């Protein structure tokens, strides 16, 4: 690779990176359009929307060739501008419905002008004298004699936050269930698979209960049920055999002889 080639590769990469930064820097397609419109150096009212559409589409295309992922709304705008462009270039078709290309272009120009106007208004607003920075309120308000009447107040925001709190609280309920005392069948199956290799002879199922689950009644219930369900599953898979001498009699299991 020659030096020239190398440096041009570097330049390309830098350009690509700059573009990524730029795309991140825009607040949506309208913002990008507004920035592009500045290159025309005319009053927004006199802007060429056709030219602007071409600039935008060129930008999007460049981003695509550089494989920069663009948010969907950039592509939607690109499609719309391509459509607008075709309307502006082709002679109007009297059979076609909807607004003319000129009307659509005028609306877009107006949208840009409005956004620009709001930007300027925001800047002017922030440039105003501000309380706590340029002018100040009384620093030592005089404590009024005796506080007698108390008015209880709340704002609409308080009210809504309270309601939201209650409703959100509801939705949390399923997630905070105490699961400490539940032994799942998956856990039991896992455990049984590890132990079954040693169960050569008939053994009482209750001896398979996990440690620490025998004392508390609710824990024992859960562990027994899960372990029993796991043995049924293993029996179905043909790995073990089950035996019970009578109703409510202890259940015994053993490994199925090979």
């Amino acid at each position, binding site marked *: 690779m020659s030096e020239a080639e190398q440096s041009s590769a570097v330049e390309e990469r830098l350009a690509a990176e700059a573009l990524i930064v730029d795309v991140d820097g825009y607040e949506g397609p309208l913002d990008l359009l507004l920035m592009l419109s500045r290159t025309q150096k005319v009053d927004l009212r006199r802007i060429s929307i056709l030219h602007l559409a071409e600039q935008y589409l060129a930008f999007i295309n460049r981003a695509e060739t550089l494989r920069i992922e663009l948010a969907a709304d950039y592509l939607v705008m690109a499609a719309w501008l391509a459509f607008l462009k075709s309307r502006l270039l082709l002679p109007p078709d009297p059979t076609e419905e909807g607004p003319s290309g000129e009307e659509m272009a005028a609306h877009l120009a107006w949208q840009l002008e409005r956004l620009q106007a709001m930007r300027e208004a925001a800047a002017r607003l922030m440039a105003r004298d501000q309380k706590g920075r340029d002018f*100040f*309120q*009384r*620093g*030592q308000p*005089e404590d*009024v*004699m*005796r*506080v*007698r*009447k*108390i*008015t*209880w*107040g*709340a*704002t*609409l925001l*308080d*009210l*809504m*936050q*309270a*309601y*939201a*709190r*209650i*409703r*959100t*609280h*509801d*939705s*949390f*309920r399923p997630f*905070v269930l*105490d699961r400490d005392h539940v032994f799942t069948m998956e856990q039991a199956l896992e455990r049984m698979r590890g132990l079954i290799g040693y169960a050569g002879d008939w053994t009482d199922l209750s001896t398979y209960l996990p440690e620490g689950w025998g004392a508390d009644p609710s824990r024992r219930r859960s562990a027994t049920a899960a372990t029993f369900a796991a043995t049924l599953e293993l029996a179905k898979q043909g790995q073990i055999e089950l035996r019970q001498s009578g109703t409510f009699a202890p259940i015994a299991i053993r490994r199925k002889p090979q």
Partner: protein
Amino acid sequence: MSADPEEKSLFEAPPIAEQERMIEAMLFASTEPVTVAELSARMPHGSDAAEALAYLRRRYEGRGVRLVRIGDAWAFRTAPDLNFLMQKETVESRKLSRAAIETLAIIAYHQPVTRAEIEEIRGVAVSRGTVDQLLEMEWIRFGRRRMTPGRPVTFVVTEAFLDHFGLESARDLPGLKELRAAGLLDNRPLPGSLALPGEEDDEPVTGQTELFED
């Protein structure tokens, strides 16, 4: 402070009327009485805080507020003969308690609603004091009795409530969707969303008491 201002400063001191304005503003905005030394330190070189202060004090003589000396510092204070005007400012507004605001919110969103239903939604008992307070504020009132066993009374919000919150009707309250959009509500889907309390069974209450046993 500045016996020889011309010698000390490259700049000319502001006119005394301007110095008066400065002191006026500083004393007004300060959270504590300010000493002459401190006033001087904050003013442009060559200023004479003591002199300006004397002028300012004279200017406020007989006004609704006066310039008073507290220790070696200065502050504005209401003229004593007008103290009677400060009585009314004794209205203290406090935020409603959490229980009260939640109860109020439930009544507003679910009205007409019985006490039992409020408790069901909140998951905790509603104290008599809370309801009494809201009744006293005239933000809620009794509605029709519910035609169910026991014929419990219901609560509804009042005109005064709507007035306070700038609502035309209780239907104007932002819905759950908007609460969520404003970031006040978690994005989780809600069980049954705005189902009327009457349609819910008792489960939530029992479910919650279990919850809080931790």
